[in-house]
């Protein structure tokens, strides 16, 4: 199974035209791998055939979107990021009477609960609202449920401790069979919503926007567009947190941000 870039581009154009999902500005190699994975799993040999199938069958397209847009993450991924977030940013956010946080591309929610735990430990959660958005409905539902495999907890606990957690990680969840469910108190101020960074607009003003390991999937133009969207969505002196290998390099707004922590990719809007 192999297809050329032209075939791939044509398919992504058709998807945009028919369904409004825009993958045309995604970095191609990852999209290609995910589509190949989707085709392999369903034993579809030719891209053209798969294109016809998903353009005619909305149910299959749903599956396609879920697989092509899924991202994996973990709680407190890159503990040093969360440590810096706590020490350099949350302390400053504490001066606001009301804190709005946007976690853009929240995937299956591990980052949301990580941030909620930090806010809780800094005594800020009850006056915060976290807007958690993703393009992928199935991922959003998992995020909403807040139920995760128990075997991940060992890694997450270690991450939590490295991130400077002040409590006991196991107090934030209840284990049942092979799963754990995160505490309701963490969820009370989270708003879950579908949002597509490639096409949707700004919807609120935030003190903190976190978007980690999402931009790496976009080409330079789309990265630029999305950083501008974040810029417009931040209040003056609002904070932006990116993934450890992401940057503002391709953004027209790079001069409108200052580094708070260079290594952890934390920025403040000037």
């Amino acid at each position, binding site marked *: 199974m*192999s297809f050329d*870039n032209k075939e791939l581009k044509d398919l992504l154009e058709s998807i945009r035209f028919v369904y409004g999902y825009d993958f045309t500005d995604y*970095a*191609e*190699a*990852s999209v*290609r*791998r*995910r589509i190949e994975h989707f085709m392999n799993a369903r034993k579809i040999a030719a891209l053209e055939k798969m294109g016809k199938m998903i353009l005619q069958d909305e149910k299959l397209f749903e599956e396609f979107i879920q697989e092509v847009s899924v*991202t*994996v*993450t973990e709680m407190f991924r890159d503990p040093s990021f969360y440590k810096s977030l706590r020490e350099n940013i949350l302390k400053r956010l504490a001066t606001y009477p009301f804190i709005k946080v946007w976690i853009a591309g929240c995937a299956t929610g591990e980052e949301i609960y990580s941030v909620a735990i930090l806010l809780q430990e800094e005594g800020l959660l009850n006056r915060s609202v976290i807007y958690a958005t993703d393009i992928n409905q199935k991922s959003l539902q998992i995020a909403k449920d807040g139920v995760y495999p128990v075997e991940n907890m060992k890694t997450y606990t270690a991450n939590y401790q490295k991130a400077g957690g002040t409590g006991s990680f196991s107090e934030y969840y209840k284990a049942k069979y092979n799963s754990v469910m995160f505490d309701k108190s963490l969820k009370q101020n989270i708003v879950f919503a579908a949002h597509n960074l490639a096409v949707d607009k700004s919807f609120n003003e935030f003190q903190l926007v976190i978007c980690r*390991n999402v931009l*790496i*999937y976009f080409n*330079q133009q789309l990265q630029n567009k999305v950083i501008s969207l974040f810029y417009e969505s931040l209040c003056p002196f609002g904070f932006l947190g990116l*993934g*450890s*290998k*992401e*940057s503002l*390099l*391709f953004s027209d707004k790079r001069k409108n941000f200052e580094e708070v922590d260079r290594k952890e990719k934390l920025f403040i809007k000037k």
Partner: protein
Amino acid sequence: MSGINEKYKAIVIGASAGGLFALSFVLEELPADFPVPVMIVQHRSKDQRDLLEEVLQSKCRIRIKQADEKEKIESGLVYIAPPDYHLLVEADRTFSLSADEPVRFSRPSIDVLFETAATVFKDSLIGIIFTGASNDGAAGMAAIKKYGGLTIAQDPAEAQFPYMPAASIETKEVKHIWTLAEIKSFLLKISAA
């Protein structure tokens, strides 16, 4: 070996357990203006952000750097996949990164780099697989062969961990089974061509 330099436009290397010694041995004498870009996946701990690059640089003349997303792939450089990300080659010969699930328990995965590089560099790609205790890289080597590239595996008999080169050899898609010394002298011939 005239023409070898025109034929090959990129080299990918996969290494796992025991890889640091193999990499230093093979790369240390490459000249700073080595005419072909070298891209490496070495399985590594995600907690050590730049240690591998620093250690290799201290032994090598050619510039060693961690690959950045969207970076243009150029000669005279050895690029290393960052910890905890897959490294992919795009059609416009830039890098992209992904945080997709591990492939064969690895992120970065050798297969991901090799397969994406194969589709871009086709028959001008050299793929080399070193020591390791994983079967990551075997599918990648097969992809390189399929696109007409040259495949080389370290001789399992001398590899610190023979499993990984052996897994590639088992696919029957490996052209040369060479010792590190032979691989090194082959690469030096490219730079002299």
